[in-house]
């Protein structure tokens, strides 16, 4: 760290930062517009960054918090592994997830900015390609080892002197199910980094090399100083929390996720050596995914407005055991690691809650909640596949109930509209509504889970890759647990419940009901304002029976309009599988 900034320099830093972030924003727009894959265009599953010559992140643009730690891990690892001089007009391609991506679908492109023969920095874009080959269409499925998940690309030079290496491209395209999309997405990434390089050199031409170099140092120093100042507000010491994933999908054995967090003057250390060993299943994640979880949790605790660059990452230390679920090594499969990232995030937040309860939230639904189904489409006679993730409840907060039906933490993708989905796929929704009584009770209760019931026009295969059937979201400071996730076939009839990860054949006309978990409660339930309990009954969020039994508040009003207008409610069905 250099000395403190002259005040006038500090005043102009905000403008310099805008200029750098503006470049990465423009890279994102270029990528998004030119890409072919839905994942990139609408789910915004990508990240664009600028790095300096020492592979330090200087600016980033991304929409999904799960990318908070990916490139910062990936790029230094790629450069170290490639280990050959790069020239102007070169670019390296890599998807070797264990270097820092979330899964093989995350294809990373790194291009150097060379000025007078010297590498000044890098423009980088990483995007989720729809398919990279392997045993499952889309390359994300339940597998035992990475070789089943798709083509593994080590750092290779794909661009030389501004020209694409045809052999590398041919090798890639021959191994994927959708070569047209893959080539389109790769060209979009090349366009994105070339915009980044152009704007970066324009900035240098405008301000001069020394000024930009100093500006970068100042920016990272400023961010670091601000991060340290934010950490200074945290109590010193060590905190910890542990939770378990229901299973790994291959065996029934729960998977331990444990974090021990130590706060010192200039650093926050996440000791994750208590996490389970990696499994022969796709639930493992990488250093990149793990850093995302830790960085997210810390950022929420200290200063959500912190610029995201190396100055911020410097205050985070992550200690893992190589070969564990949070730092898997080859040949571990990693396609479903996002659920481990999601849970590690909640575990870290739980640990922070022990010292910063005022800033914290109780547990949320705590899983990606991947739902997919497919089969022969009776409307067209062709095969169809459909995928979505479903929201759940958010934990209660000091002075605030949890949000109902929301994508929590590292996840933030929109729902598919009913009308559009019914128009495009042979499915009809029977109901899409909040699940009453699913909240974790508390002085500030958790948010409600979400129910989405599907009925199909033809026979389908229906899969869920999720979590939190055995282990429900927990409350905080005396708040109660929420209702867990329920996956129920034929809810009005046989009502068969399933575990967290399953695939089942569902005949036409039969209902599959996905009822997601609520959020945990915050604070003692006895302290909840009875007026708020009555309001929850009036709005149909909780039943009067639950108000009496759990909150001890008698509400002798007739059933609310809501209850009467929802006939045949089976929402309290509890059936053991």
């Amino acid at each position, binding site marked *: 760290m250099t000395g403190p900034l002259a*005040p*006038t320099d*500090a*005043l*102009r830093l*905000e*403008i310099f930062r*805008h200029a750098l972030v*503006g470049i990465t924003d423009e890279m994102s*727009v270029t990528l998004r*517009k*030119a890409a072919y894959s*839905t994942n990139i*265009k*609408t789910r915004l599953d990508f990240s664009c960054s600028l790095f300096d010559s020492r592979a330090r992140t200087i600016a980033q643009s991304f929409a999904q*918090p799960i990318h908070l730690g990916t490139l910062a891990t990936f790029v230094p690892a790629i450069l170290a592994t490639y280990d050959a001089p790069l020239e102007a007009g070169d670019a390296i391609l890599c998807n070797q997830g264990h270097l820092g991506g979330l899964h093989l679908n995350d294809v990373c492109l790194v291009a150097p900015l060379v000025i007078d023969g010297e590498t000044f920095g890098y423009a980088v874009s990483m995007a989720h390609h729809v398919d990279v080959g392997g045993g499952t269409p889309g390359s994300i499925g339940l597998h035992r080892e990475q070789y089943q998940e798709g083509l593994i690309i080590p750092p290779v030079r794909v661009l030389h002197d501004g020209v694409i290496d045809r052999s590398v491209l041919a090798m890639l395209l021959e191994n994927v199910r959708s070569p047209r999309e893959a080539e389109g997405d790769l060209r979009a990434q090349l*366009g994105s980094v070339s915009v980044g390089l152009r704007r970066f050199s324009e900035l240098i031409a405008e301000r001069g090399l020394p000024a930009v170099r100093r500006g970068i140092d100042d920016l990272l120093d*400023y*961010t670091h*100083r*601000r991060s340290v*100042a934010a950490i200074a507000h945290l109590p010193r010491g060590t905190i910890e929390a542990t939770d378990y994933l229901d299973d790994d999908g291959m065996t029934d054995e729960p998977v331990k996720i444990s974090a021990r967090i130590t706060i010192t003057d200039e650093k926050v250390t996440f000791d994750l050596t208590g996490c389970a060993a990696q499994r022969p299943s796709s639930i493992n994640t990488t250093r990149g995914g793990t850093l995302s979880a830790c960085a997210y949790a810390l*950022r*929420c605790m200290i*200063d*959500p*407005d912190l610029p995201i660059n190396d100055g911020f990452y410097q205050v985070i230390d992550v200690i893992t055991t190589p070969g564990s679920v949070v730092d898997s090594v080859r040949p571990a499969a990693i396609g479903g690691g996002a659920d481990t990232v999601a849970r590690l995030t909640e575990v870290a*937040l739980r640990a922070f809650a022990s010292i910063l309860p005022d*800033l*914290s939230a109780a547990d949320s639904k705590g899983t990606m909640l991947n739902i997919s189904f497919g089969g022969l489409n009776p409307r067209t006679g062709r095969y169809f596949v459909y995928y979505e993730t*479903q929201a759940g409840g958010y934990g209660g*907060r000091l002075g*605030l109930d949890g*949000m*109902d*039906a*929301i994508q929590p933490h590292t996840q933030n993708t*929109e*729902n598919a*509209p*009913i*009308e*559009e989905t*019914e*128009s495009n796929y042979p499915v009809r*929704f*029977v*109901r*899409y*509504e*909040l699940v009453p009584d699913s909240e974790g009770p508390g002085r500030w209760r958790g948010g409600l889970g*979400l129910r989405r*019931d599907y009925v199909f026009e033809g026979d389908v295969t229906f899969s869920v890759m999720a979590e939190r059937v055995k282990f429900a979201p927990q409350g905080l400071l005396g708040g109660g647990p929420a209702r867990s996730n329920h996956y129920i076939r034929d809810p009005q009839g046989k009502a068969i419940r399933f575990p967290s990860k399953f695939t089942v054949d569902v005949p036409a006309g039969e209902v599959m009901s996905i009822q997601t978990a609520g959020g945990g409660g915050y604070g003692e339930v006895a302290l909840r304002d009875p007026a708020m309990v009555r309001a929850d009954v009036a*709005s*149909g969020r909780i039943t009067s029976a639950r108000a009496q039994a759990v909150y001890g508040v008698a509400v002798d009003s007739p059933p609310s*309009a*809501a209850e009467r*207008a*929802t*006939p045949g409610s089976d929402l309290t069905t509890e059936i053991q599988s």
Partner: protein
Amino acid sequence: MSGFRVAIDIGGTFTDVVLIDTESGERWTGKVLSTPHDPSEGFFRALDIALELAGAEIGACRSVLHATTVATNAVLTRTGGPAALLATDGFRDVLEIARQIRHDLYDLRTTKPLPLVAREWAFGVRERLRYDGSVLLPLDEDSVREAAAQIRDSGIRSVAVCLLHSYVNPTHEQRVAEILRDEIPGVSISLSSVIAPETREYPRASTTVANAYVGPVVGSYIASIEAGLRDRGASSGLWLMKSNGGLATAANALERPVEIIESGPAAGLAAASHYAALIGSRDVVTLDMGGTTAKVGMIDDGESLQTTAWEIGSSAGSGSAVAHGSGLPILGSVMDLVEIGAGGGSIAWIDPGGILRVGPRSAGADPGPACYGRGGTEPTVTDANVFLGRIGATSMAGGRLPLDGAAAAAAIGRLAARLGVSSLDAAVAILDVADSAMIQATRLMTIRRGLDPHGYDLIAFGGAGPLHACRQATALGFRSVIIPPDAGVLSAFGLLASAPRVDHRVAFRRRIDVVDPAEVSATLDRIEAEAIARLPPEARGGDLRRDRAADIRYVGQSWDLRVAIPGGAFDAAAAERLRADFDAAHERTHGYAAPTALVEMVHLASSVAAPRPGIADRAVADRAVADRAVAAPVGAAAGGDEPARTARPSGSRPAFVDQGVVLAEVPVYRFNDLREGDTLAGPALIDGDDSTTYVAGPFDCRVGPHRVLHLVAR
């Protein structure tokens, strides 16, 4: 046809008025502080000032035009309604679930936007349509009556109805409306199949509910304005600006109050379009910087750029794009704007890392910036401009709002002390930070859409726009900066340059290679007739502008592009042409086309607009003013037929000049002294009645026809 027209625009900080003599074009302008507790108070204060300046009677006003934030504020402060929602049974939580996303990713205390209808007033109605509009479950009328009984007993009189797939088949919604009318006397009903007949239930329900929710507030507001006008002896009707830049009668607005939600920004763009046409500029970026926010828009070939997807109440941060999902989606045409929290009233503050930030918090009208002397102590952008001499002590509102330079200096001084710099450095830095945030917004509008600012003129207006425009031009390379006369009250002026217009869009999802052209033709004819029927009766004349279009995408895409459809019958050849036009548009917008991919239409759209009123030429007006020697109307200079001359300053004041942190004696011109053909060189300040223009050092300024200022870098 002699008489006056008067236009009043209410903003977050100021209420602006322009009164025009329809024959001579002579106009009078005024600016008063807004009165958020009762906006009609500011309305009539502004009206009275304009009438007094002009020596006119309200009875001589042929029309009263109004841009209002009353509908917006009702939503933002949740003071509209109460309203109820009827939805398909099993789907009444459509507002609660919304998009299931968080708009603030790192704030564990974030919340979803609060629905406009509380869950207890959202009812399920037993019925179900399939995606193709066929009936799966017939409407259970008793379930409607049950809900109606509860609504009636509660006293709610505004009801939104949004049933699944009603955009394909509205019959269930229509029957629900009949039952509600029978059961609830005096009920006002908003049907989603009428308000926004488009696919995707959440934005459609959100729009329909917003209509039901703002209805009662808009209704009583319009009634109070109309009553006040009647009391003053007005004989003319009240017209309101809609979000799409078209005028509506009070009756139109009561029918679809959701359409006036973005009234104010639309008026500003209407005025900018007017001046763009007058000076013959086809490619324009607009910068409207007022007291609370800065809005960047675009005019393409004379028409302001519009969008059909936006959110009300979305959070706008300084220098960042709007956070998706933070507001409530509203369907319908609206000006496409990037809005950031950087206005004259935006407050400068120091963040935890010791860095200076500006906005998005604003000092508003009360207390206002420190220099207003109304108790504000925090330094704002306006205070920095005053401290740096860019705004003179008597520059504001024609001197009716004297500014307290000492209070501005004190506020800046306190900030400077905390930063450990001189007051001068602090004031310069405030403007730097505000300017750089606006540059980011302007970049979003241009470079991020693949447009090069070098090919565009920047029209700057609003109270603060003309002060900050040169910096935008320098940073982004605009061809020129255009400052219209009355820039400080341009939104009010825009009302005078506007005409009735209706935009209508319906879902029409058909693959273009198999569509029946006759069905397209018939649907276009039908929706055009529906659009015309929604125009005020007096605007349904023969010389309407009629535009038709389709929203189209490649099969599998999530975003569509609007492509114009020429008038006349739509046949097989037209379908082929439309396909080719779409490929070309896609290439232009997204950088590639896929001519062999399948293409589908998503919506058909019709837009009908009455011709815009002519506004008498300014030169004539100026002469008329000079002859009559009326006190203080804007532009009381002599005629415009003299040769170019170098303008003479009326004085000078010490002001900050461009990049150097040095105060210099800068020549000051009075806008009212300038006339067509005058030239002057920067650095210079031009004081108008309602705004000050800052001509930066490297710019030359020429006074063009209509006394438009053209600033071009040397």
